[in-house]
């Protein structure tokens, strides 16, 4: 239990650095985990060189999904859109640094699905986005 609710998770959940909305934005996408009711929207600003310059997330959900979103946005700022297209789920799980069962894994990976679906300009997100480029 103490592993799952590491200090960084609780801290990011309670005091997220990237909570908010960006208006205007270049990319925005939202989705949810219908099972548990996690709902996240991610807004991104991208410069002329396809570099992500600003990022924010809004919505609600469990500590794992919210902390994951906050850590992910910190990671993507300053990186190119192409790099994030190639990002694998293992990279996000490394940022979280916790072992997760199949149910909570969906919470942790929701932000990555959303950011990739937004970047690819897809109408909806899907699990395939977590493993590969599309």
């Amino acid at each position, binding site marked *: *239990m103490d592993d*799952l*609710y590491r200090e960084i998770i*609780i801290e990011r*959940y*309670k005091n997220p650095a990237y909570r908010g909305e960006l208006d205007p934005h270049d990319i925005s996408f939202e989705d949810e985990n*219908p*099972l*548990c*009711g*996690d*709902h996240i929207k991610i807004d991104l600003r991208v410069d002329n060189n396809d570099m992500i310059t600003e990022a924010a997330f809004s919505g*609600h*959900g*469990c*500590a*794992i999904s*919210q902390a994951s979103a906050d850590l992910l946005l910190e990671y993507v700022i300053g990186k190119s859109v192409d790099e994030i297209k190639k990002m694998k789920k293992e990279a996000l799980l490394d940022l979280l640094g916790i072992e997760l069962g199949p149910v*909570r894994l969906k*919470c942790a990976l929701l932000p990555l699905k959303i950011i990739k679906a937004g970047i690819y300009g897809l109408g909806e997100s899907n699990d395939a986005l977590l493993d590969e480029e599309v």
Partner: protein
Amino acid sequence: MTIEPKPGKSLINIKADFPILGREVHPGVKLTYLDSAATSQKPLCVIEAMDHYYRWINANIHRGVHTLAEESTAQYESARERIAHFIGASVKEEVIFTRNTTESINLVSNSWGRQNLKNGDLVILTEMEHHSNLVPWHILAAEKNLRLEFIEVTPQGELDLNSYQALLQQNPKLVAFSHMSNVLGTINPAAEIIRMAKKVGALTLVDAAQSVPHIPVNVNELDADFMAFSAHKMLGPTGIGVLWGKKALLSSMPPFLGGGDMIKKVHLRSFTPNDLPHKFEAGTPAIAEVIGFGAAIDYLTAIGMDTIARHEKELIQYALRELASVEGVRVVGPESDKKGGVASFVLDGVHPHDVAQILDSDGIAVRAGHHCAMPLHEKFNLPATTRASFYLYNTTEDVDKLVQGLKKVKRYFE
């Protein structure tokens, strides 16, 4: 043969009858099971009845004249008889075996609904329905262009009978409603709802998935037309449920699924359907499960549904009082006098998934999410809730553990 419980069996030391309640879920941490609204645990007599069936009896039913087939058929039909008696059905032919409540409702929507509902017809549901009593009607409404309207839920979590009365003026063909909400725990005034529907000539379907396991329910007293429930929420196995319907009504309905056992005669280009209840039981059914369900009915009968309902009433009163003592906890739904043993709640600042996860570390099993009632959660503007639900084997100590667990959750998030 298996051990049968004796009438007048008490609730004292009842946990010992349920092998799983003795298990540790983490090293040194015993299970505290508070998720019976999702599925109940099974007493040894149910497990043994199914085990005995497979070890000694296993044979297909309603065909074959060998000893095993005779015994298998007799046990299967005996279970049907006990289930019919348990719910006060006039004749056992009114008890149709399905997979679960969901399939029972789908049977009604597909068979009765397809035959009797047409363009523009009104079906009344409620805002507190489980998805199982929403989606079958969505599907039929799209096909037949039906109107679906919903009895409103008050902020206290009860059905607003004034909104119902208004809907009844619009010539509904069917009123399909949950007897007891799986989220709010509200026990709806089923007899009154049915009486009001009859006045305007509408048929009624009772989703009794949460009521039949917990309170005495008599279909004749209710005077409903259809009632659906599942074995697994009442100490029986998964994969078996019941559609009860009035005989005349069931007789007039076309078959739902086609295949073996549901026919009298089959020709290359036609068939004659079988009599009730077999007309609606196509293919080899879940025989062992029906026999297990019968054992569950015997167990519940030995204790008595009045005793079980009283026990759960005491538990929910205690639980609501104790939960109110935890700062930041808000329980949804009515006061204890209007509900069964279900407490869904939110804890300020902590998502239900996190609540459930931390409770699990103490072996406490609760459900987190929308409990297959997304519209109801939308109505109350809650993305999700944590639900503790009780059954005959729960005690005030289980409630105490829950309260201690919630205090631990708060410490993590302080």
